[in-house]
């Protein structure tokens, strides 16, 4: 029986951006865990509203504005360890930023 494949859902700028935000969050938390340890990195992330993190895989689930969640996450780490933590976050997110338009890039990730 032939099945005509369903047409692909139209790609919106929101869907790929949300996926990128969750990837960025996961990578930031992973890199922070290398510096400050898994326990503290996840504990800091737990304070961010709209962000849930799988502790074993670092898979993130974002509800709400992804850009704001990432900013909040970076600020959380900055409050904890200073601006050095912001640089760590920027380095962690650098490879994903090319896929984000400038207006959707979290402000704290802009150099």
């Amino acid at each position, binding site marked *: 029986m032939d099945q005509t494949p369903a047409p692909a859902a139209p790609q919106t700028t929101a869907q790929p951006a949300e996926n990128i935000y969750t990837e960025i969050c996961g990578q930031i938390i992973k890199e922070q865990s*290398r510096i400050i340890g898994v326990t503290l990195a996840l504990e800091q992330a737990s304070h961010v509203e709209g962000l849930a993190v799988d502790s074993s*895989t670092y898979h993130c689930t974002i509800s709400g504005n992804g850009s704001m969640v990432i900013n909040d996450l970076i600020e959380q780490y900055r409050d904890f360890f200073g601006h050095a933590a912001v640089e760590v976050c920027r380095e962690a997110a650098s490879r994903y930023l090319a896929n984000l338009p400038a207006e959707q890039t979290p402000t704290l990730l802009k150099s």
Partner: protein
Amino acid sequence: MNKKFKLYFIIGLSGIVTALWFAIFVTDTRGQQINYWWQLLMGLSALIYGIFGIFTAKKWNWLKSGVGRGVFFLSLGLVMWGIGQLGWTYFLFAEPNVESPQSHLLDIIDFAAIPLWFAGIVTLSKATGAKYGLKKLSGKLLVVVVSLIMILLSWYFLVEVARGGSAYFEQAFWKQFFDLGYSIGDAIILTTAIVIFTLSWKLLGGRFRLPIITILVAFVLLYLADFWFSYRDGQGLYYNGDAVDLLYFLMITTLGLGITMLDPNRVRSSKKIAPAQTAAAPQAPDPQQQETTSEPMPAVQNPEPPAEAASPVLPKEAPDFLKVNPVAPYANPHDNNEQQKEES
């Protein structure tokens, strides 16, 4: 062992030992049992403060994080220094007429602190953001200039002033090695610490700026103490309980305080907290939840239950680290065996 206890213990014990030193100094007591007991207290203090630091590394997941490794190596260095000092003190009591034991074992133990402290400083630099300072040309120039200045100053003070110049090198190799080794090692550590701190000056912040500064000050004191000891010992002026020893003790205290201040727990009383929100089902925090709730932080797609008594769940509004016994409810994705061991 909470942070508050460690800090008060260090301050209290150091206050007592310092007061005893002043009593020895004011009365100009030399070559007496009290001088040896003071040396013992100094070694014991270093050992205890180092052990405190090793427990602090646990809060940073031991060697699994950059800060944890830094804290661990710095603390282990302090432990080795303390053991070496206690070893020397043993000979003071057992063989008071022998100027120095024939075996170099104590020298090796003492000297082991140098590479450990160096490793601690370097690994801690990864958390301070020093490498980002190196990206600029000014940062690179700073490294070169500071290193050159420190090399020249150290050679002048440690060889020319403290050791009488190049004639010093006519002595036996091992004596040269250990005498100069401490001083050169101190110079390398201090140079590295200054460079790292200068590179990270604008990047370092948060609650850990003061502890890092304190650790830097400790290495300045170590450098000065070793130089001053080399000078006074070379001049035949040194005695047990000398002013140089006070400088060593201040170094131990400062390093102990700096490492302990790197404990991520806050020194404050616990407050009533509410559970955190979850992203899957956002809801307002339950105001009836107590701070000691054993509810673990809900995690998506995490079938593993918490292995031990879970830490209290923190709301985003509450200050960080209110609990004094943080038990990680999270599995370490880098080491699946660790969680299985905890559950068994």
